[in-house]
């Protein structure tokens, strides 16, 4: 799982020098159980499931302030994006089967959304 998160995010947590400038920059600090510098630390220490199940990861605005200001180019926001993706992908079972798709189609729903949903929930 650590490797998956590292691969999806492209983040090397070992570059972090634990200065906390990411957390200092974060506008969503109050609403998250864990904070940007902790995301990086939790990847490094294998606490991915704890992070996936924590409160408030969806409150990360992806404003990329932490990415922009990190002195060491660690990019914590990309970790949380990867974690959110992991959460979505672990839902289990097929939420959507190809047979269901024709029934869902209507003029207002962009086809892209269906393709995206199909891909996300495929596994």
């Amino acid at each position: 799982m650590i490797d998956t998160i590292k691969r999806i995010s492209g983040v090397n947590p070992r570059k972090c020098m634990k200065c906390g400038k990411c957390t200092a920059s974060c506008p969503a600090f109050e609403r998250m159980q864990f904070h940007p510098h902790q995301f990086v630390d939790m990847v490094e220490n294998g606490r991915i499931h704890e992070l996936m199940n924590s409160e408030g990861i969806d409150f990360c605005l992806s404003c990329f302030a932490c990415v922009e200001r990190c002195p060491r180019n660690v990019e914590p926001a990309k970790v949380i994006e990867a974690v959110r993706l992991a959460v979505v992908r672990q839902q289990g079972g097929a939420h959507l089967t190809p047979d269901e798709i024709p029934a869902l189609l209507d003029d207002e729903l962009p086809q892209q959304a269906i393709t995206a949903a199909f891909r996300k929930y495929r596994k």
Partner: protein
Amino acid sequence: MQRVGVFVCWCGSNIAATVDVEKVAEVLAKEPGVVFSTNYQYMCSQAGQEMIQESIAKYNLTGVVICSCSPRMHENTFRKTCEKAGLNPYMVEIANIREQCSWIHKDKETATEKAVILGRAAIAKVHLNAPLTSGTSPVKKRALVIGGGIAGIQTALDIADAGFDVDIVEKEPTIGGKMTQIDKTFPTLDCAACILTPKMVDAAQNEKIHIYSYSEVSSVKGFVGNFKVTIKKKARYVDETKCTGCGLCTEKCPQKKVPNAFNLGLDNRRAIYIPFAQAVPKVATIDADYCTMLKSGKCGVCSKVCTAGAIDYTQKDAFIEQEYGAIVVATGFNPIKLDQYDEFAYSQSPDVVTSLEFERLMNAAGPTGGTLLRPSDGQHPHTIVFVQCVGSRCDDSKGKPYCSKICCMYTAKHAMLCREKYPDTDVYVFYIDVRTPGKNFDEFYRRAVEEYGVHYVKGMVGKVVPENGKLKVQASDLIGNQQLHIDADMVVLAAAIEPDKSARPLATMLTASMDTNDFFTEAHPKLRPVESPTAGIFLSGACQGPKDIPETVAQASAAAAKVIGLLNKDHLVCNPCTAQPDELMCNGCSSCEKVCPYGAITYVDKEFRGPNRTTLLRRVAQVNPAVCQGCGACTVACPSGAMDLKGFSNKQIMAEVDAICR
């Protein structure tokens, strides 16, 4: 053919663990000309050296090949060993089977094979070696110190103390450097000016020291013991010999709106100025960028008020040529520009200052007369936030990769002084790590926390927003796991330090090497820390790496000791591996003269005997062996193959290549 002896060293397990040394000695024994081949645990030991000497006598060796570590380590050792046994020291060749073989290979079989090949190449070369004799070159007994900060001053004082003449070249109108701008010094909190100005005066009064202020080095030629340097004395439009430093002109000049560089632009000065009261030399300088007289020809007030008649609007840059035996680089540092870190609002609010600006705001000779006032409204600040590591310890794309080393201590000093002078202020220091190695340094930092109540917060400031006369600081407190929001009156940024911009072009002139951060590199990071790899060039102070004052002074004195050691010699032994042209092959094209970095090559018209008793006049290259450093640039440039390097001739190199490819 030479009678060659081969000596394979184990270097303990350094070589023997990866290379089958016995096999190497065995295989090399079959090479042509090899009359003796052996291996030993430590060739460089006394016993090893004696073994070489005995073998030279016993087998009547005329060439020696030693398979061991890099020639940088022990070439000299083995040359001396063989010289004592009566062999010319240049009949010794080293095959590097440690750094270039055992240390970089894992597989013993491959490494052994490579060691044999390297040994074979050295044997092929030694067959073509010729005995060489070193010449000598005289030493000019005068030193040049480039940069007149505390590093340059200390080096110059120590060299002068040993009885040698020293010139200091300083680009600013006064010597003293960054230390003149500093208020107090850690960890003792004594006043910087009080300990620096006596040294400045010492330098000025010392008969052996000549100060070229407001000057720059414009060219450097020559080599160790014999540098020829051109110094550019920039026009200051004031006759140094006449100016008494009374300062009347600096009061009467009508151009009042010149940013005062000494106070980092926090206040203004006149167009004619003396940087500060204790300047050395205490001579006025006209700032040509702002002087109305120089720009439009209308004014001349300073000239009218000067009773000494020292003002000279027609002064031009002057060039001085001087010869030196040694050159010391002491070009120092500067804080970096903060444009890249505008989350701290440095460009948005005058109340966000750098630490050096903060020094001026605390200094009695500074823009506020020593009372800490906010630059924006002149009010006392009540909450001050210090941010450490601004631009230091960054990824390459975000700033400097190194720790600037001095910031932790000066920030602790600033925080402590604030709390001492103004106990009603709240002082926060945001740190990543507090790095205080040094005598009485950590105690000093602990005092700031324990006795002075400075709030040290492990974390970083994320952003600073100027709002309604306050600076809204958003920061992290990692130990408290909280985000802090502080309404500050002032924010002080501990900006990273970088080498002075003049260092890079100077390094090119000196052919001295630098690292990627433009710090000068040492000849050896541990064992030769004050010498540049270029002979005769020495390093003093922060041009070599970030340093505080005690370290700078220690290094400055160390550099002086090295210079004194050099200047004490009447002659230097030259490297005999110099270039030599074959006059019959030389076509007089001047290619070699153009590429020679030392100016060792000249051309002469020489008579040669032609066919049928005629005489031909041909232009041919001549090498001055005392100047040639044996770099080999000319041998590569020569289109007709006339230039050869003694000890590294084209034939020898080709023989090595042949031996490797065999």
